[in-house]
């Protein structure tokens, strides 16, 4: 994620979450978890190994597609990571 902070992020609203997930070949399963489109049994994980529900999805940053959750602690960690 080095260098990411220099780039203005592309942002999206809640209404475009599905579009963004589709962009990265992901979708949402019947329980609301984000999964791989070509392997729906494989749930997408954060860097801490947490599964992510659509409602908690906050975006993706570089580093082998690191998925980010929208809670305070995850965003503080992201702020630290983007500083490096």
């Amino acid at each position: 994620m080095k260098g990411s902070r220099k780039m203005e992020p592309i942002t999206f609203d809640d209404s475009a979450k599905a579009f963004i997930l589709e962009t990265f070949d992901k979708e949402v399963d019947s329980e609301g978890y984000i999964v791989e489109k070509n392997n729906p049994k494989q749930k997408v994980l954060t860097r801490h190994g947490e599964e992510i529900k659509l409602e908690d999805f906050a975006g993706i940053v570089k580093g082998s597609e690191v998925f980010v959750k929208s809670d305070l602690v995850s965003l503080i960690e992201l702020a630290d990571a983007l500083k490096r």
Partner: protein
Amino acid sequence: MEGLKKLLSGLFKIDLSRLKKLGINIFSNNQIDISKKIENNVFNLNISGLTPEDAKKVQGEIIKAFVKQETPVLLKESKDLLEDIEAANKEQSNQETLEYFEDKIPLADVPILRAALYIRHVYRRGGSVEKLKQDIAFRYGQRGRIIANLCTAGYFEDVFQPMYEQMVRAGGFSLDEFRDRYNVLVTQSPQAIFVNRWDSVESLKGEILKKIEINKKYKVGYLALHGRGRNNVNKILELLRDADIQKQIVGDPEIDSKADFIAAKIRF
């Protein structure tokens, strides 16, 4: 993002190349006609107005920006929160507190303190912190919630820092001893009670009397009661009038109170 700007320029017949710091925000709303709008230097793209072919082109450019330029792709409200966190991190008082404690408190508490300092930053400007506290509690449990409360109430600067410096001055000091005392205060928070909406006056009375007893044993001569919201303020005022509690305290309580907030300190 230049590729995406170029694509959007072509699709909407508008020259975006001159706008160097243009942001792009993506939304979907088929109830409105506007498929694009530049506001506050952000190009708002309504994807519901795109043909499937053009949507695929947009997705392709997003991937290119992500892969080649490491452009983050973030939920707008999370991006706003991220920027607010970064601004709070730069505040001198927050930096000083974090730098002071990062080699003194247990390592596992350092990220909790960082999050707690942000919550305090929001609290002090009158913002809502309940969801943020829930986020801390979800990741770090009750300990996280207690540290957040203690931080907001100024305990790190007003209690833990003087405690550390007093221990250093007293001689024979060890960091483990400080951490032991710090842990007692954090796990039991004996010097503070934070009144929540689900606390009954009876249970709070019991907690107050118990903490007075513990604090007397450790020669800590005060207890602070904190509450937000009119109901919690009224609970604390009722408790301060309680005969059993009044028997224990010395002098008049120090009260800092507004309609929806109270901090009361009782001595014994």
